[in-house]
């Protein structure tokens, strides 16, 4: 592959990004609107010596993905709302056992079967808290076809670097639309490999982390025989209920993500320098927000946009700073209130936080956000 | 066929056979006692298996393969 300009669909860009990132295993189950990722990888993976399998269900797909990753192969699965719900138990397993993988959720209307072919942004909290237990989470939310491609690569890099699953969240519109994209030459893309142990097998402790809180990883079958369990475990990987060990492990998992926050955090600001009102919007909604900000500016309203590209961990610092600068933040999202609570928490009352929410299965139109901006000016 | 040489075992031995018992691991299920047709084994008062007649052992290995706790070995 060389640097190229062309028309590409969002889901196709995801599949291609995965190949560039070094993904060589995909397990999935058909579900709209994410199926094109599977279809594309079923074609592409064997071409590069990778493997694709359509599993019997979403749960099995997530399990196979983790199994393959323990075999040393970069792995991915993709799904949509209901399937994402089914994957949650094994997603928690991957977090706790620190198995890198990428999970894509192309969001559609819900709850339940909902609107299979219509967009929503209603899984951002499921991404954060869908699996049980206390855990950190990394989630990225691209807003264009090009960004889907790049965020997929980033998701793999973060997953491998930090030994944790990374979630890619985008909606049906971005998944299905085709857009002009200009892709960088894959040979120019930085690819991260998982940290490997330098010690001999006899002294290897699979869950003993170095200074960066990330334990080195070795694939099964390399002489480093170890145990992986979803039970609370010690540095050797063996089950334990020792409160001190359990707590230390939990805290390390959180610290691992928290201390790499700057590596994970990604966002875009648009006309924010002198803004007095701002929109906080991600994914497809951020595109409408951008159009709304342009129109607002042409009408003399000093509006700006903060577009998070990384949703989790939440951009507390950036939103806190924004709240000091502007008098109001409009949180526009295709749900009836999810990220707005995070924005309110981070704003700490320093700016008014107003909602523009929509749950009709249609994207938010720029004019709707413009009206919301005019209301809070 | 099973060796427990590395463990802290109680060893009973004759020219024909060596029986090793790892008392620590014995949970006292009595399977070995029940399956031994030669009545070589019995339970002690603490509920652990002991060898009472090592001479009678014909090395049928039933106790060895059926002990679920890896607590008995016949050589």
């Amino acid at each position, binding site marked *: 592959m060389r640097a190229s300009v062309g028309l590409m669909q969002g889901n196709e860009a995801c599949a291609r990004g995965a190949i560039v990132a070094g993904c060589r295993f995909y397990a999935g189950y058909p579900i709209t609107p994410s199926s094109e990722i599977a279809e594309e990888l079923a074609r592409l993976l064997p071409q590069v010596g990778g493997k694709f399998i359509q599993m019997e269900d979403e749960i099995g797909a997530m399990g196979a993905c983790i199994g393959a990753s323990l075999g040393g192969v970069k792995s991915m699965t993709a799904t949509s709302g209901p399937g994402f719900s089914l994957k949650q138990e094994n997603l928690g397993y991957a977090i706790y056992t620190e198995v890198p993988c990428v999970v894509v959720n192309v969001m559609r209307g819900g709850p339940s079967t909902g609107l299979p072919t219509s967009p929503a942004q209603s899984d951002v909290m499921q991404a954060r808290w869908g699996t049980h237990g206390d855990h950190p989470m990394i989630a990225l939310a691209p807003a264009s076809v090009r960004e889907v491609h790049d965020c997929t690569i980033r998701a793999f890099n973060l997953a491998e670097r930090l030994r944790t699953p990374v979630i890619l969240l985008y909606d049906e519109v971005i998944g299905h639309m085709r857009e002009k994209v200009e892709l960088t030459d894959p040979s120019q893309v930085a690819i991260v490999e998982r940290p490997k142990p330098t010690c001999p097998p006899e002294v290897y402790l699979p869950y003993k982390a170095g200074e960066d809180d990330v334990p080195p990883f070795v694939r099964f079958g*390399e002489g480093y*025989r*170890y*145990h992986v369990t979803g039970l609370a475990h010690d540095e050797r990987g063996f089950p334990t209920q020792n409160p001190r060990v359990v707590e230390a492990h939990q805290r390390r998992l959180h610290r691992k993500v928290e201390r790499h926050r700057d590596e994970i955090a990604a966002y875009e600001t648009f006309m924010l320098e002198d803004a007095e009102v701002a929109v906080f919007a991600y994914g497809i909604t951020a595109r409408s927000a951008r159009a709304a900000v342009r129109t607002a500016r042409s009408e003399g309203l000093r509006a700006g946009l903060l577009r998070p590209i990384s949703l989790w961990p939440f951009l507390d610092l950036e939103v806190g700073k924004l709240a000091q600068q502007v008098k109001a933040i409009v949180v526009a999202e295709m749900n009836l209130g999810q990220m707005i609570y995070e924005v309110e928490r981070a704003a700490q009352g320093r700016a008014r936080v107003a909602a523009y929410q929509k749950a009709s299965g249609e994207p938010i139109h720029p004019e709707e956000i413009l009206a919301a901006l005019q209301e809070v000016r | 066929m*099973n060796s*427990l040489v590395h463990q802290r075992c109680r060893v009973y031995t004759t020219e024909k056979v060596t029986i090793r018992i790892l008392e620590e691991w014995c949970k*006292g299920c009595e399977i070995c006692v*029940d399956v031994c047709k030669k009545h070589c084994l019995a339970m002690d008062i603490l509920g652990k298996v002991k060898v009472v007649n090592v001479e009678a052992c014909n090395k049928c290995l039933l106790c060895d*393969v059926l002990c679920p706790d890896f607590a008995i070995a016949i050589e």
Partner: protein
Amino acid sequence: MFDYHEYFRSEMMPHMWCKGCGNGIVLKALLRAIHRLGLSKDRIAMVSGIGCSSRLTGYVDCNTLHTTHGRPLAFATGLKLARPELTVIVITGDGDGLAIGGNHLIHTARRNIDLTCLLFNNQIYGMTGGQLAPTTPEALFSTTTPYGNIEPNFDACRLVQAAGGTFVARGTVYRAIPLEKLIAEGIQHKGFSFIEVLTTCPEIHGRRNKLGTPAEMLQALAKTTLPTGVIHQASGPEYTEAYDGIIAKAQGRT
């Protein structure tokens, strides 16, 4: 001289199974089979689900993966595809493999991927305290069938055979030497091998239903009316090999 202890993780022993539990006997048969085949511990991966039997993976000094309830075959499928050169052995129970994980069992059998699956059938959910399993005999009691079980139970071997498994066998913990041979044959078989092991749960299941001492429960297995030994063996394309053909085709080499 063969020593089980060479295959143990000493820090994990003795195991946590109850007094008289048949699972230890299966573990022994499995280790003897591995020893008999001369498999290197580094090249073996054992994958288990959740339940009493699935704790087995913690004890064996190889590459071990203790997964989520019902899902070991799915994890193992991913692992085997990633590393076809590994000998992948799946440990599951009757609840894990036939109830919550039943879907994975039939589809893994259908694909004929080269895994060896040992299903420990003790007729009960032991780990959670003795609830009804899909294998609990009719009329028996469990904590969730206080008036007796009215559900017919499962013949796992017929299920797997119908689904396309190419090696289907049944052994019992009472016949531990034949069981060892079945396991060894299953591991050597190319394709999906399924070995149902009839085992005993004297503490949780036996006591409630007055099934006798651990030894009596073992001996009762000798009288099982179910067929034992190799029940079905066939040859068919193995999944990871078939996928190599896909790779060759996609790369234009065929």
